[in-house]
């Protein structure tokens, strides 16, 4: 006597019932397929965009930025310059003692006008200590041309964002002139061009050596900002520690500086999950319906199967297998179709928008999402198939046979 319900005979019976209702079975499978496909395409696309933005923005900006509270100050000539952090030693001490600080770097930041042979544009000049700054930002990965931070340890070299370089019509090796708010100016050689893929960064950001900039601004050892990289980025308790212990400073964390992106990521996540869930729910209803109808129509057959020796568990299995085959086919095809559509999107070229600079849509191709989509599809069908199957197993043969 076969005690396991998972056997050839039960599967044979299940297949026989499925093939007797090819149309409905196919429709139910298409329902699952649509759910799984949508889930995969959406999650590939949404997380692709999220990761792209995370990568571009969060890696292009530090986890925590410390500056003075009084943002602007006029120097003796009446020009606006960023104000200098008076208590940087105090801040450094807090940072060195804090457990969650991975590294930090001093910066001196100022606006300036950059002038090339043909054009002139305003820019944001980041005076950085290249050894420290390397730990903050992986500029090597962002380089389009030339060299990274190591090249600005020499004096009179500058790194430009790609959009700024394009607008100035300069490339690596060219000379440009920088005019600072205090009237000082100097000639700089472009030693590298980088791209974060975010227009607001690539349009204005430049890097030069901090000591050079300090000299030009007459601020020996003066800094305007401290950038901090955290070990655990989600733990921003450092922010309140700093505000408590040091007076007169402003502290901004990555969530503050990238509010719209953080919210955007959340919205995309919610969209992905809710739309996929809704579609799988509809697919689940499809399977539930077809099986419930089958069970009602096939009460007599179920009664006969029971009288000739098929147990309640056999009956549950026979019907659950039908649901699972529908789910399996739908989910597998859903993965294939999901991949195909994602691939098509990933090679679709994209007009560069004002906000981000990419050639094609950013798409994630993580195996995990396919496993997730597949599992959701199967789980939906098992869940939807369970109740009709249980109902089938409860058919009482005597009652039915009396009525035949």
């Amino acid at each position, binding site marked *: *006597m*076969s005690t396991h319900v998972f*056997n*050839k*005979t039960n599967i*044979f*019976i299940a297949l*026989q*019932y499925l093939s*007797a209702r090819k149309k409905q079975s196919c429709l139910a499978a298409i329902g699952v397929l649509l759910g799984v496909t949508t889930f995969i395409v959406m999650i590939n696309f949404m997380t692709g965009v999220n990761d792209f933005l995370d990568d571009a923005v969060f890696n292009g900006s530090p986890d925590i930025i410390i500056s003075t509270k009084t943002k602007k100050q006029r120097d003796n000539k009446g020009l606006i310059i960023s104000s200098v952090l008076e208590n940087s030693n105090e801040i450094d001490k807090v940072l060195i003692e804090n457990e969650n600080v991975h590294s930090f770097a001093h910066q001196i930041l100022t606006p300036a006008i950059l002038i090339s042979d043909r054009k002139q544009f305003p820019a944001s000049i980041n005076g950085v200590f290249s050894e420290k700054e390397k730990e903050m930002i992986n500029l090597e990965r962002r380089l389009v041309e030339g060299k990274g931070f190591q090249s600005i340890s020499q004096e009179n070299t500058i790194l430009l964002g790609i959009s700024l370089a394009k607008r100035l019509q300069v490339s690596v090796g060219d000379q440009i002139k920088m005019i600072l708010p205090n009237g000082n100016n100097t000639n700089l050689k472009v030693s590298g061009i980088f791209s974060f893929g975010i227009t607001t960064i690539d349009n204005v950001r430049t890097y030069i050596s901090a000591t050079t900039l300090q000299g030009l601004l007459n601020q020996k050892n003066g800094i305007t900002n401290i950038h901090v990289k955290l070990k655990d980025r989600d733990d921003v308790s450092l922010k309140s520690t700093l505000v408590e212990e040091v007076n007169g400073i402003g502290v901004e964390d990555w969530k503050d500086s990238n509010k719209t992106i953080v919210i955007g990521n959340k919205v995309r996540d919610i969209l992905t999950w809710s739309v996929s869930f809704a579609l799988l729910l509809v697919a689940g209803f499809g399977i539930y319906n077809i099986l419930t109808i089958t069970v009602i129509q096939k009460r*007599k*057959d179920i009664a*006969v*199967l*029971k*009288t*000739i*020796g*098929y*147990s*309640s*568990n*056999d009956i549950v299995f026979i019907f659950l297998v039908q649901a699972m085959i529908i789910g399996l086919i739908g989910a597998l095809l859903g993965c294939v179709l999901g991949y195909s559509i994602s691939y098509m999107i990933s090679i679709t070229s994209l007009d560069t928008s004002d906000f981000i600079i990419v050639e094609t849509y950013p798409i994630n191709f993580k195996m995990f999402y396919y496993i997730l989509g597949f599992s959701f599809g199967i789980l939906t069908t098992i869940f939807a198939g369970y109740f009709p199957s249980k109902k089938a197993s409860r058919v009482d*043969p*005597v009652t039915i*046979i*009396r009525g*035949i």
Partner: protein
Amino acid sequence: MILEARHIDKYFLEPEKRQVLKNISLVIPDGELVAIHGESGSGKSTLLYILSTLDTDFQGDLKIKDQNIKTLGASALTDFRNKHIGFVYQFHYLLPEFNVLQNVMLPAMKLSKKAKEEIIEDALGLLDEMGMREYAKRPAYQLSGGQQQRVAIARALINNPSLIIADEPTGNLDQKNSHLIFNLLKEITENKGKTVVIATHNSTMYRNSHKTIEMIDGSIRP
């Protein structure tokens, strides 16, 4: 004795409590064709469902092949029925999704004691005996009532059970087919040594049985 029933009472609670079987005791010896007859509503079907172990909700004792039915759990009972009891219904119910051969094979595939080839051979042999071999590959629903009933008998026999129970197996057939089915069932007892219990109100049928039991209003007429 293949079957022994002692003091069987059966009540239906709906629509109101009513005793449908009253103190039924009977013994059925091996290798006989036993006919239970009586008026419609006298409790024949109810008794047969109990004797075939489909209905376990009764008072009294039932022994089949020396096995006390009441001691078996649900799945053991299903297995017991699969092995030892073949059932034929009035409406010769075959599964329409399967062909004739597959219908006959289903109980044996559940028993799974034999290889598939062997089961096919057995099934074809039985269909041959029932004069239905040439229909083996036909979908079940294409057969006439009499043909379906012959296939149902083949299905009841496939696991070589000792007991065949048939509830008005000819109730839906014309006279010629009724006669044919009855003779087939009789042959089963005479040639194969099986016990067949049928419910019928066809008088030629119960007169030609080895033993008859008459039911009147839920009791056996002494």
